[in-house]
């Protein structure tokens, strides 16, 4: 929030500081990136080191559809941000709902993938190093998706009751920043797990 106090003498000086919500979210993103980096390093270090059990090549299918859904959700949330900046609240609500839907589809897809891995391929977190690092890294990302979806759902409920307006666009953008971060992490996780690691 910028402070523009009136100085006696009648003139107003421009004193603009970055928004604290945005700075706070960037800080959170930096911290979370550090956590993800440690899990990615563990994943990369342990590639090919499992002593037994299923290998990535044997059991992993590249989740193209899931990835397209999640990355498109970044586009839809961007469209929602632009809509609320123009005060088009109905358009905002539609794009926001689209984002949530795409996120939920991603989670369902992950669930289906994990069901297959656990029950058909016998890969659990305790099976081998691949299982350990795969479920913790992808699971950590999925947890962040769930947190993002919960926040967006709350905003959606407030939208339906008419409480979200043009004045809240700054806060919507801060939340969208988090969602973009979650998508960026998926790009890294996807590359490391399904491309480099297979």
């Amino acid at each position: 929030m910028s402070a523009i106090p009136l100085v006696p003498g009648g003139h107003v000086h421009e004193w603009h500081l970055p928004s604290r919500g945005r700075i706070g979210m960037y800080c959170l993103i930096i911290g979370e990136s550090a956590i993800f980096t440690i899990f990615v390093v563990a994943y990369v270090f342990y590639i090919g080191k499992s002593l037994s059990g299923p290998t990535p090549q044997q059991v992993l299918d590249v989740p193209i559809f899931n990835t397209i859904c999640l990355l498109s959700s970044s586009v839809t949330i961007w469209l929602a941000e632009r809509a609320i900046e123009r005060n088009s609240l109905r358009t905002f609500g539609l794009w926001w709902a689209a984002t949530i839907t795409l996120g939920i589809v991603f989670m369902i897809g992950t669930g289906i993938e994990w069901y297959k891995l656990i029950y058909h391929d016998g890969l659990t977190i305790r099976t081998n190093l691949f299982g350990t690092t795969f479920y913790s890294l992808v699971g950590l990302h999925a947890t962040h998706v769930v947190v993002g979806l919960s926040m967006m759902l709350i905003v959606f409920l407030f939208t339906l009751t008419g409480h979200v307006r043009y004045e809240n666009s700054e806060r919507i953008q801060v939340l969208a920043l988090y969602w973009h971060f979650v998508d960026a992490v998926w790009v890294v996780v996807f590359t490391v797990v399904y491309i480099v690691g297979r």
Partner: protein
Amino acid sequence: MADRTLPIDGSLDLTPPREEHESTILETLHAWVITVDHKKLGLMYMMMAIFFLLVAGGEVLCIRIQLALPNNHFLSPQVFNRLFTMHGTTMVFLVGIPLVFAFANYIVPLQVGARDMAFPRLNAFSFWMTLFGGIFLYYSFLGGGGLYGVGNAPDVTWWAYAPLTSRAFSPGNATDYWALALIVTGFGTLGGAVNVIATAISMRCKGMTLMRMPLLVWLMLVDSALLLVTITPLTAAQIMLVIDRYLGAHFFDTQAGGSAVVWMHFFWIFGHPEVYVLVFPAFAIASEVIPVFSRKAIFGYPAMVAASVGIAFVSLGVWAHHMFTVGMTSAGNAFFVLSTMLVGIPTGIKIFNWLATMWGGKIRFHVPMLFCTAFLFQFLAAGLTGIMLSVAPLDWQLHGSYFVIAHFHYILVGAIVFNTFAGIYYWFPKATGRMMSETLGKWHFWLFLIGFHLTFDTMHFVGFEGMPRWIYTYPADRGWANLNLLISLGGLIQGIAVLIFAYNLISSLLNGKIAGNDPWDAWTLEWSTASPPPDYNFSTDPVVHSRRPLWDLKHPEDPDWKYE
């Protein structure tokens, strides 16, 4: 109720007189428990830090009684292991980190001319998470048995190496208390760090550009930024540890191809920057106290800022100097030798600048300045023994010996605790409106100095004599007995000094001399408002034109902005 007729920007105290009314004890307690005010939260962090300092101090006094004589049986080896684990864990996470946020929370909003931190409710959340984590850790003394009935407080040392921490070698819940309590305090720390950064960047008063911020604010900003990427690797590693212990994962399980060395890397990627996180408040306090008591502005402000940022960056690349004896490649060892030595450059710049500030100044040796002067010598010595340890072949001889303990306690006690005392003596008048006793303060200082040097200077030698760490006793024929006795004696003297300090704190609170707004004739914004400050901090939003706004107001014929 600000007086809107006032013409002067950022003027000296204009606080309306406080209304006096009696609160019941319950009302007072309630006000403190629900507060989101940065001043109360800062004081609560400080109370938590002092409390756990006394607890961990008690733990180490037990350790020193056990080690004072050879073949002693005051403590069993199991209890000894728990005590040094809890001593280290408590001091780092329940004293060191809370001290960062105690000073940052209280002082940063006041020095930037803001009404509160950027996120007051997050501030409260962070404090209570930190405190809860601490209580949770100490509950392990009672509840660490778990299903297996084995164990008590964690006894795996404060860095909890794998595979000692695996289910097989640490049954019971002691290790879980260690990991989970620190994950909880870690979230509190992350919240606090986000808050400090957002406050320093987004809440500065008009005219306060980044290069006009007090150095304390700069150091807390850099410290918090470092914390974002320091505490999080530990959280990640501890999550991996908990997953290993409870879900049968294999992150650190050598039987399944995992690696215990991975834990070491992850831990020290946290652990080394962490010690810089802990020492930055000491730098911050020195950068505030030394100029005021030398009656000179800090020498080389831009270099101090650059050096702080430099130290933060370099500290991220030196972690494996804790692992020289693990058997990394020669190239690996060499890289970390050089990167560790590199940190001496920005640190040296800071020491030279503090000295240059004192040079030619009119030095007043009040208690805060006594502690800061001792800090300068002790921090330099600690840096030098650090450079000694950074030479890998010498480290191969000294790793795991008392020389290392002497080195890091020279920083933790000699730099951090000394400057914490300096900071408390310096800002106590602002926070409470009363001065601490100079006489008791001088007794505290000299006793603590003598005790500190008796203990930790001697400890370097007993380390050279080959005494290893983590042993609960030693035979009489090693030649360590006399040195250990001296070390323990020094510990006792430090304990007495700290008791004098605690007495000073309480008696000054009750009937110290009234301080007024600006007892030290200082130059930063916190001294322009009442002591203690009103809830809203400043009656009018301050406007600053230089790094020393109060100097400009007190000396309008010779303002700083002509020279900056």
